[in-house]
């Protein structure tokens, strides 16, 4: 396959599509997305220096590769390459280096494959999915960027009635600088199925500028259940961009849990479309920032149908000179009577130089609904620290306990156990200043054999806080 050292222009769109051996309709769709990308104004945001795009660097320096990245992944992935875990995809940049799907899942028709493999196998199905994408090129510059320039991706589907309990996993390792990983993901839970997914994003070795961008189309068909989760651990100079659109049908339930620890800049959008009667959505944006990290989150709950339930939990801790902004929206259309929606943003600042903003907005066109909102941005509580110190904990330990505890009310709601436990482990790692992988947790557990019992938050989030009517 090819390497194209050209700028992000129309030429690159064509050559990418060609080297990926794509059908004409897809090339045309990329070109259309490219037009939006070039026409949409740069996204201004108080987090980024004025007039500089989110990328934070000259994208033109990058080379696009397709399916042939030379990445030394052996040491990093280790025994995952030799079947340590089934139902996993390992990726070095855009290139899949190992995939494993258990016989039992394969025989039930579960798909876990690169996007372009799915395209080859079932072109008409993929085409109709592509035509109904919810991450639109018209309204979002970075959505358009991915739609135009994706050089890889995943296709995940669980057939009707099949229920997964353990997550399908993928680990992505970003290596050689200047090779952006731009991905189109489809995650589809057919009727009455259950899909569970956990992805980990890493960078290898010393930090170099790099880019990981993805559009994720989640589809939860009637009566299905999707739990999708991401743990983002990219390197100090990486840029992370993600757009997730979640289409939820009648009586279906979808959750997206996202833990952001890595990257210099992260821009994460979640769009929950509660399209079916009785649909349910839950979004988690959990973050822990330091140094000069800049994270930009936006989560929208769009209630289009009656009896729908949605909640957004944004919670994080900021150190150093890091900054975050969280925009949360609840939109309840007139037809969506009897819906309930909850929006929360809570941030703890560990230094006066850190900054976090929450920008809630509520658009409610029906009176027979309940929407609740809760928000706070505060310095760490000195009285709590004193109480712990008065019980013999050193100032550092006290701080650690209060900080890690701050995540718990939200973390404990994250539905996938591996993600929840993994997130705790990674947050603790960041607190300690250690570079960890999720897999290290198992090793450590095997050594110490200790697990502190989990405390479950049982509070009914719809029963408290200020109510909008």
């Amino acid at each position, binding site marked *: 396959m090819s390497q194209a050292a050209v700028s992000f222009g129309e030429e690159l769109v064509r050559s990418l599509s060609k080297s990926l051996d794509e059908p004409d309709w897809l090339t045309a769709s990329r070109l259309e997305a490219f037009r939006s990308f070039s026409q949409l104004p740069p996204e201004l945001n108080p987090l980024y220096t004025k007039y500089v795009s989110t990328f934070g660097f000259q994208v033109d320096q990058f080379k696009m590769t397709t399916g042939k990245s030379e990445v030394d992944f052996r040491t990093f992935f280790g025994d995952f390459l030799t079947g340590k875990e089934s139902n996993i995809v390992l990726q070095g940049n855009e290139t899949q280096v190992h995939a494993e799907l258990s016989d039992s899942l394969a025989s039930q028709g579960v798909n876990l494959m690169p996007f372009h493999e799915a395209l080859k196998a079932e072109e008409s199905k993929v085409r109709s999915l592509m035509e109904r994408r919810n991450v639109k090129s018209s309204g979002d510059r970075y959505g358009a960027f991915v739609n135009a320039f994706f050089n890889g991706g995943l296709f995940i589907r669980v057939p009707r009635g099949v229920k997964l309990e353990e997550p399908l996993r993928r680990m992505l390792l970003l290596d050689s600088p200047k090779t952006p990983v731009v991905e189109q993901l489809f995650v589809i839970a057919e009727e009455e199925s259950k899909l569970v997914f956990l992805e980990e994003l890493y960078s290898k070795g010393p930090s170099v500028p790099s880019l990981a961008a993805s559009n994720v189309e989640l589809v939860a068909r009637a009566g299905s259940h999707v739990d999708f989760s991401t743990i983002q651990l990219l390197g100090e100079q990486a840029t992370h961009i993600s757009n997730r659109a979640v289409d939820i049908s009648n009586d279906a339930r979808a959750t997206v849990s996202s833990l952001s620890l890595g990257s210099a800049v992260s821009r994460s959008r979640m769009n929950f479309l509660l399209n079916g009667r009785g649909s349910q959505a839950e979004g988690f944006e959990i973050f822990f920032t330091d140094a000069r990290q800049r994270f930009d989150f936006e989560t929208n709950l769009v209630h289009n149908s009656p009896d729908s339930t949605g909640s957004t939990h944004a919670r994080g801790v900021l150190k150093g000179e890091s900054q975050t902004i969280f925009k949360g929206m609840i939109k309840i259309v007139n037809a969506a009577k009897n819906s309930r929606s909850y929006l929360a943003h809570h941030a703890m600042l560990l230094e006066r130089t850190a900054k976090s903003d929450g920008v809630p907005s509520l658009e409610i066109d029906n009176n027979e609904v309940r929407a609740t909102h809760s928000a706070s941005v505060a310095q760490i509580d000195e009285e709590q620290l004193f109480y712990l*110190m008065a019980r013999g904990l050193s100032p550092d330990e006290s701080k650690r*306990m209060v900080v890690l505890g*701050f995540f*718990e009310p939200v973390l404990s709601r994250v539905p996938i156990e591996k993600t929840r436990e993994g997130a705790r482990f990674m947050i603790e790692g960041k607190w300690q200043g250690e570079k960890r992988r999720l897999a290290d947790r198992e090793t450590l557990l095997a050594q110490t054999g200790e697990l502190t*019992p989990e405390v479950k938050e049982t509070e009914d989030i719809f029963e408290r806080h200020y109510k909008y009517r």
Partner: protein
Amino acid sequence: MKLEIKDLHASVDGKAILKGVNLSIGQGETHALMGPNGSGKSTLAYTLMGHPKYQVTSGQVLIDGESIVGLTPDKRVKKGLFLAFQYPVSVQGVSMFSFLRAAYNNSRPAGSEAPTIFEFKEVVAEKLKMLSMDDSFLNRYLNEGFSGGEKKRAEILQMALMQPKFAVLDETDSGLDIDALRIVAEGINKVSGPQTGSLLITHYQRILKYVKPQFVHVMYQGRIIESGGEDLSRLLEEKGYTWITGYQEEDQAAAPSPQ
């Protein structure tokens, strides 16, 4: 060994609150500290424990002859000091279990081996039983949503685990129902042996029926203005504080201090 407070002056946000407190507590002794609202009892408790907001402006606090002023609270714990809070703080997300375990491990005698999680569970189970507390407390967030009485019991649970040499109990008896008062008071008695010296801050005589003080002190406007035996608390209950404070104010008026 003694906890000695010598001419202690302390202030909060530049405002002088303690204005020359003198008190000496030996091991095995129980002292009751009474006094009207706002007289500085909790301030004394916080200052002893090393709350960062409370500045010692002069005077001394010694344990076993060594000054503890300037030490962080955790270092004071290691010297054997304990404070049961008048208003225990709640911390979301921190489980009672992991908190107690940390408290236990941080107050063990140096050199002793930390118990395993299972050994520790047994230790706690026994103390919970002593205080008639349910196991389910361990799975809750620290003091979060605890009733007033439950918080006070939890304070004594911590004291039982930490086995201090000197314990300051700030209104541990407030907000307890009759049965809880007895359970908590008996708990205090069991936990404090002949090695423990305690300072019991209280407004009521009722706890003193269970926990017998050898000394009773009255604090007023940042000073201890009267000390006596147990009968002093009975007199106070009968006559109220003006009986002493009135006399004190007259005294002050007669000989105005230079401040």
